[in-house]
């Protein structure tokens, strides 16, 4: 048990079973896991902070809130409502995930050097030690990942894991599109021996 908690990385079978249990547990107790929507909610909160008009109470809307922005106003103002009331299941879930990652990393033996927390080995082998280069790449990568997730309506959690678990067509389509590009790009971009 002790080893199970402190070990730096689980083997694939324990990993797969634990991942499966988490996804079953969440759908049994509440609803399937999704993450990428909460990036929109946080953006909306920042936008709402600087503008009084972006989310307004509206009795005629299904959610009770509306927005002049078509995306926040989608599905009867569903996102507008969550921007106005961020203390809800999905938003808190994401912050709890951060805490979960923090706890897991604090419990594992100090193995990784500081450099490894900025760029993985596979990156430094190919692109060198420049931190600025890595930061620029992850920033661009993050932009593409979240833009793509929002266009697709979900990410690895919502589409790939939760979607394929429910045998949903959209989950399979998303996963096919993702791997069809990610595999050749990763092979070409990180060409090398290691």
């Amino acid at each position, binding site marked *: 048990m002790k080893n199970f908690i402190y070990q*730096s*990385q*689980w083997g694939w079978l324990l990993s*797969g079973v634990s991942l499966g249990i*988490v*996804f*079953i*547990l969440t759908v*049994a107790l*509440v*609803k*399937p896991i999704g*993450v990428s929507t909460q*990036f*929109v909610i946080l953006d909306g909160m920042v936008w709402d902070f600087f503008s009084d008009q972006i989310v307004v109470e509206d009795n005629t809307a299904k959610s009770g809130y509306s927005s002049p922005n*078509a*995306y926040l106003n989608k599905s009867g103002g569903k996102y507008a409502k969550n921007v106005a009331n961020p203390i809800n*299941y999905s938003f808190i879930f994401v*912050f*709890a*995930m951060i*805490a*979960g*990652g923090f*706890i*897991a990393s604090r419990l594992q033996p100090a193995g*990784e050097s500081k450099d490894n927390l*900025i760029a*993985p080995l596979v*990156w430094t082998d190919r692109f060198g030690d420049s931190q600025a280069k890595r930061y620029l790449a*992850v920033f*661009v*990568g*993050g*932009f*593409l*990942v*979240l*833009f*793509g*997730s929002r*266009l*697709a309506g979900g*990410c*690895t959690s*919502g*589409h790939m894991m939760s979607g394929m678990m*429910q*045998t949903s*067509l*959209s989950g399979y*389509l998303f996963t*096919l*599109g*993702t791997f069809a590009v*990610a*595999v050749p790009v990763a*092979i070409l*971009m*990180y060409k090398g021996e290691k």
Partner: protein
Amino acid sequence: MNIILSIVLGLLFGFVLQKIGAANPQNIINMLRLKDFHLMKTIFFGIGISSMFLFVLLNIGIIDSANLSVKTSYTGVIIGGIIFGLGWAIAGFCPGTGIVAAGAGRKDALLFILGGLLGAFVFTLLYGLLKATFLFGNLGGKATLAATGNAKFTTLFASMPEIVIAGGIGIVFMIIAWILPGTQKNQHSIVK
């Protein structure tokens, strides 16, 4: 009650993502360049076992089909997946693993999140222009392969028992997980 559940389940999910190595971009990139199948075995097994048990538990009434949430299929799901795949290969993070990695102290994950917030914001601004285009053209609606018992979703293989379909897919996924080659000892950056 929901808030307590969100804290407990979110903590568990974050903990598990870190422990399985998914929050380490080294593992993601090496999976995508087909050098290390640890995460691919994990993902296949996780989806396979959860798919099979989900439909068993739906069938015997332990999980309520009202809890399910099936997303719509439209052209943008594939195009969005392609854009996602490009960014995923470059950065080595997806939205969930990026925020867990930030919690685990990775500095590059913070820049990933900032880029992600900007990407989500640009999409929020563009949605009004994009929503009437081919990107949101229907590709099958809220459809599943196996019958869920929830009338909001359509079923593609309605004539076959859902346990056979979901169980069959689940078993195939678990077999794939089993036969993919494992990690060679020198591949992990954090072998102790």
